[in-house]
């Protein structure tokens, strides 16, 4: 079949044959199947407008419009399959690519994203997100962690401790994600583990987004006195999102153990072969 598929004993991921985008994740152990469309988008960073002079900057995230723009509707894909790895290489644009990967025995889908240098030739600052859209009916709720320990329930356009008058429909719903963000309909849970702190949210039911990179052209007048604009051609950033699909009842044991392995990942030290015997004396 033309559908691109990678799988191991636990997970199967399918990609749309026309666009090359991820379109479905299956947990083979739990017999769970969830349509998941993942793509990269960018918010046009505000430089101040008639509503407010506040620009997006090092301290402030403020997009010009609520709707982000797609980096690309489709990706050029390259399939690699060996006994020890199955991966789909997706190329969205000259400055945005991703490898979706499965190793044997792995109970999560690894998305290694590479973003940058962010082009600013159009004189627009850009804030790049990776967004997962699913059919989960999440009723405005999503969950983010606090330093990898406590999980906090978040409700769109709402604060538990005061009556919120939401003036920033996007930024006002962004929260810090130190290690994970997840959504659930009570039965099925989709969790995304991060390898560093990022901003994240769920701006629509069934949707999760995480900000992976930013490059801005004006200062936000909060004290830095300089736009968040890397020198020269700009930086490119590489990171990983680990996506887990589980039953809501058992999801915590999966993401908690995996997040520990992520934060305390093994370290590699290399040496030429050989070496001389060494003892303290």
């Amino acid at each position, binding site marked *: 079949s033309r559908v691109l598929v990678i799988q191991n004993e636990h997970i199967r991921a399918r990609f749309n044959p026309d666009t090359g985008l991820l379109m479905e994740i299956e947990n083979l152990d739990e017999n769970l199947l969830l349509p998941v469309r993942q793509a990269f988008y960018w918010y046009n960073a505000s430089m101040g407008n008639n509503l407010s002079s506040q620009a997006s900057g090092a301290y402030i995230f403020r997009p010009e419009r609520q709707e982000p723009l797609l980096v690309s509707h489709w990706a050029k*894909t390259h399939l690699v399959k*060996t006994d020890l*790895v199955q991966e789909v290489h997706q190329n969205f644009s000259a400055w945005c690519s991703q490898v979706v990967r499965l190793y044997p*025995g792995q109970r999560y889908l690894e998305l290694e994203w590479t973003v940058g240098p962010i082009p600013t030739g159009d004189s627009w600052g850009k804030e790049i997100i990776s967004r997962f859209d699913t059919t989960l009916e999440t009723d405005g709720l999503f969950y983010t962690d606090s330093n990898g320990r406590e999980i906090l329930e978040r409700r769109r356009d709402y604060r538990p401790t005061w009556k919120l008058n939401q003036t920033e429909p996007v930024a006002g719903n962004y929260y810090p994600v130190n290690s994970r963000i997840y959504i659930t309909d009570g039965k099925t849970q989709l969790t995304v583990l991060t390898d560093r702190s990022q901003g994240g949210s769920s701006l629509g039911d069934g949707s999760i987004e995480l900000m992976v990179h930013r490059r801005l052209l004006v200062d936000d007048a909060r004290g830095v006195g300089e736009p968040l604009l890397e020198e020269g051609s700009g930086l490119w950033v590489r990171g990983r999102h680990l996506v887990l699909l589980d039953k809501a009842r058992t999801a915590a044991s999966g993401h908690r153990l995996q997040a520990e392995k992520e934060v305390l990942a093994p370290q590699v*030290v*290399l040496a030429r*072969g050989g*070496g*001389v015997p060494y003892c303290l004396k």
Partner: protein
Amino acid sequence: SGDSAPLKEAMAVLQHHDAVSGTSRQHVANDYARQLAESWGPCEVLLSNALAQLSGSKKDFVFCHKLNISVCPLTQNAEKFQVTIYNPLGRKVDWMVRLPVSEHVYLVKDPNGTVVPSDVVTVPSSDSQDLLFSASVPALGFSIYSVTRVPGQSPQAYDRHPRSQKPW
């Protein structure tokens, strides 16, 4: 002798919210990076001494900081090398090791000298090669795997040709 104090000092300085969240001018951010990079050195000496003492063998240990972009001159050029994997978790882990190599076939042996399955895959976007093998590392411990290049053989390319989607 090694020293972890400079890295502790750098990490202490980088508790400032500017270092944590990037709310500083570029030259300050560059200086944070400089402090970290300068303090890695003495810490790597400390780690090398500890590994020599714990493994009973003194080696020129090498730390490759760019493994995430498949750059490591030692593994890309050496005909044989050793890979020490340290596991900071309080439980045993199985972990896929991925190292940049040259286009050859490699033999990987575990700490008992048993050959373990390995693959060399071509990284499509850069045409470099990565060596993969699964390592088992004890809780709060380390395992040493040895890698040897098999002369005269080149890996089977499993890659299929790039599939170009119908352009929108």
